[in-house]
């Protein structure tokens, strides 16, 4: 035990008023489902049941799409942009006002540390609404023609890793452009979306503009294949993304899928910050990040030094209660995800890579996986190719910039990459050759609503964020 141990500093749960059960948010009201299907959402850190949520049936999806269609035709698409902007600004401000409540609820339902939900997820979600609110009355200046028109009703399916933030990425641009939406949050993290529904009520958003339906895969399938949907937006696994692309027919589709990003550290990198960047790249949000820097490529000449610094740094990570303000690494979101992480990690060992985990005690209840580093990884290993979506880093080496590029690009994915070097010209040379939607230089996992985000190859298509993000919701 160290000299200076931090006492527990839990954020209070009292700020969140959880209901026992939640209906579907359709046409401005919470309504029961047509069937009796319900499911429970739990806290992955304790396995405590948080609430009962309605499983939307195809009939419910139909109701939600009809409500969205009505709102689109009668209200939202004909409302001047500056009026739509007022609602979006109002929603952004309410998110800020209720930030603590949203952060606590997000950490409860998702398992992520409160520091991340408080300092990253919720402020960024508000920022997205503020940013797209600003575009609502300026669409004719966005570069998509003199009078760009909305698409209609958007069916949006979002993942469990950044529940409210992904909701904001989807809903803010859709509404700014004049579309209405039916959104399905992930079945393991529906609660902040349902709280967002309350925020829509609080903001007096016209009924039907935003509809939130909860459920699992079948609900999502019913939504994206519904003939009343004009646009499908999906963030999630590549496997499901491919299925959606096939099922979507003639609908406009944007997909933000998996990744296996290379985080490339050159010998002349600012080493202490590079180590922070590696940690932030793969252990931020327990590695449940599609653009996570899951493949570390280190120049061989500094391999020992970087690995030693990295291990030393990982030993200081604090894993545990997501609601503790000093927690760095929270819980794995679900037993299914934990099983997947374990299976892939075991395959890494079986294929000959060397496994090292940070020394930390795992809580008995809940779903946990220690920050883990694999060395001696060959590009052919599964852990170097497949997305683990967990706190597992695969370390490879390279000798020259060209080799770094070849290794970084040798993946079916292409969502993000990181380059660490003190040499500006090398950053530009690398960025021009990396086939990735985002290239971070001397940083990683930095997000901003003004910056477009999206992938190459199997990481999906379409861009979210920035001016480019408008295109996905305009008829262009």
């Amino acid at each position: 035990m160290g000299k200076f141990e931090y006492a527990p500093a839990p954020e209070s749960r009292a700020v969140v008023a959880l209901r026992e059960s939640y209906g579907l948010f359709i046409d401005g009201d919470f309504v029961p489902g047509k069937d009796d299907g319900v499911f429970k959402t739990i806290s992955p850190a304790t396995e405590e049941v948080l609430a009962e949520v309605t499983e939307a049936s195809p009939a419910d999806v139909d109701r939600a799409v009809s409500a969205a269609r009505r709102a689109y035709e009668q209200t939202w698409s004909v409302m001047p942009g500056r009026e739509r902007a007022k609602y979006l600004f109002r929603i952004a401000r309410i998110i800020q006002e209720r930030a603590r409540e949203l952060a606590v609820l997000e950490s409860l339902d998702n398992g992520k540390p409160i520091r991340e939900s408080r300092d990253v997820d919720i402020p960024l979600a508000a920022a997205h609404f503020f940013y797209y609110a600003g575009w609502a009355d300026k669409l004719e200046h966005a570069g998509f023609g003199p009078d760009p028109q909305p698409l209609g009703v958007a069916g949006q399916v979002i993942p469990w890793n950044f529940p409210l933030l992904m909701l904001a990425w989807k809903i803010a641009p859709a509404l700014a452009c004049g579309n209405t939406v039916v959104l399905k949050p992930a079945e393991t993290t529906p609660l902040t979306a349902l709280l967002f529904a309350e925020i829509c009520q609080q903001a007096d958003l016209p009924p039907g503009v935003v509809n939130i339906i909860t459920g699992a895969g079948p609900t999502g399938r019913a939504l994206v294949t519904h003939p009343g949907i004009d646009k499908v937006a999906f963030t999630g696994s590549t496997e499901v993304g491919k299925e959606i692309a096939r099922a979507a027919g003639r609908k406009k589709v944007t997909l933000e899928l998996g990744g296996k990003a290379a985080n490339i550290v050159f010998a002349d990198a600012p080493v202490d910050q590079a180590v922070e960047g590696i940690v932030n790249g793969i252990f931020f949000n327990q590695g449940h990040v599609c653009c996570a820097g899951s493949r570390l490529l280190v120049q061989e000449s500094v391999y020992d030094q970087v690995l030693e610094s990295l291990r030393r740094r990982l030993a200081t990570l604090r894993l545990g209660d997501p609601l503790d303000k000093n927690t760095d690494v929270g819980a794995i979101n679900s037993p299914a995800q934990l099983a997947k992480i374990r299976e892939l990690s075991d395959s890494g060992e079986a294929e000959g890579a060397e496994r090292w985990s940070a020394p930390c005690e795992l809580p008995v209840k809940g779903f946990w996986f220690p920050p883990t580093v694999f060395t001696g990884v060959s590009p052919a290993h599964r852990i170097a190719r497949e997305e683990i979506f967990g706190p597992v880093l695969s370390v490879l080496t390279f000798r020259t910039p060209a080799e770094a590029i070849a290794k970084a690009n040798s993946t079916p994915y292409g969502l993000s990459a990181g380059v660490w070097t003190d040499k500006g010209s090398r950053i530009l040379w690398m960025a021009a050759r990396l086939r990735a939607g985002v290239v971070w230089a001397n940083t990683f996992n930095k997000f901003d609503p003004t910056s477009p985000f999206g992938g190459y190859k199997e990481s999906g298509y379409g861009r979210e964020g920035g001016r480019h993000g408008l295109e996905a919701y305009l008829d262009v």
Partner: protein
Amino acid sequence: MNEAEGEPVTTVTIAGPDLRRFLDGLPGVDSVGAEARAAVLASRSIKTTAKRLALDLAISMIDLTTLEGQDTPGKVRAMCAKATHPDPTDPTVPMVAAVCVYPDLAEVAAAEVKGTGIHVASVATGFPSGRASLEVKLADVRSAIAAGADEVDMVIDRGAFLAGKYQLVFDEIAAVHEVCSGKAHLKVILETGELVTLDNVRRASWLAMLAGADFIKTSTGKVSPAATLPVTLVMLEAVRDYRESHGRQVGVKAAGGIRTAKDAIRYLVLVNETVGDDWLDPDWFRLGASSLLNDLLMQRTKLATGRYSGPDYFTLDS
């Protein structure tokens, strides 16, 4: 206490152009990343038992300082009394680590704290600007030691450093170190507010350590900004790396601008999570401050009684 036991003392062999190449070849510091890391650590929440421990640790690490033109023997005596009994009503409050004064008042301070274990630190070498000849600087150091100082806080020649004359800076530190040798502990003030970039902070830290510093210290307190979290982070990384490569542990002193208990605790968190237990000790980490002590005492009383007392319930520093 400056040499890790059993470790060989390093003899410095790099000099002249090699010294320059070595310092310029140190890995760079990305200031955006360093500031972000410091900001994350500043958001740590230190409560209850951890806070109690941190407040006492911070008190025990203070170099209680007065460095004013209007300093008098009376003021220094009063400050020394405060240093030995920070809270006269509560004997459980630890003493501070040292008192820090100008050389001409070192004698007064030494007489006051004699036998308490509190160190007497004296600034020297033409503090704060360091603009004097080497003879004058060395005479300043000798007079401080003769007056009873067992710690010398010297300033580096920032002008020479910024002009790229690393060897000159090195030689001055080495000369002062020689004068101090066996008699006083040498703290080298980098005055990071004048070095400005974090790359310079890292270079100057290494330069000072290679030249024999027992401690590296952020600031004089006369230049703004004085100590900051990112600067202290980079200095802590430097002493960590230096011990790894040279086998000798060097202390760090953050000085200036640290006024509240909250600030002090942030520095302790920085030490804890950057270099760990080995530096969480008054022998290896110091806080140069004056008004900080009363805020620490106030927070300490609040933690013990659940109530805040007004500043009138705590004695003045002097």
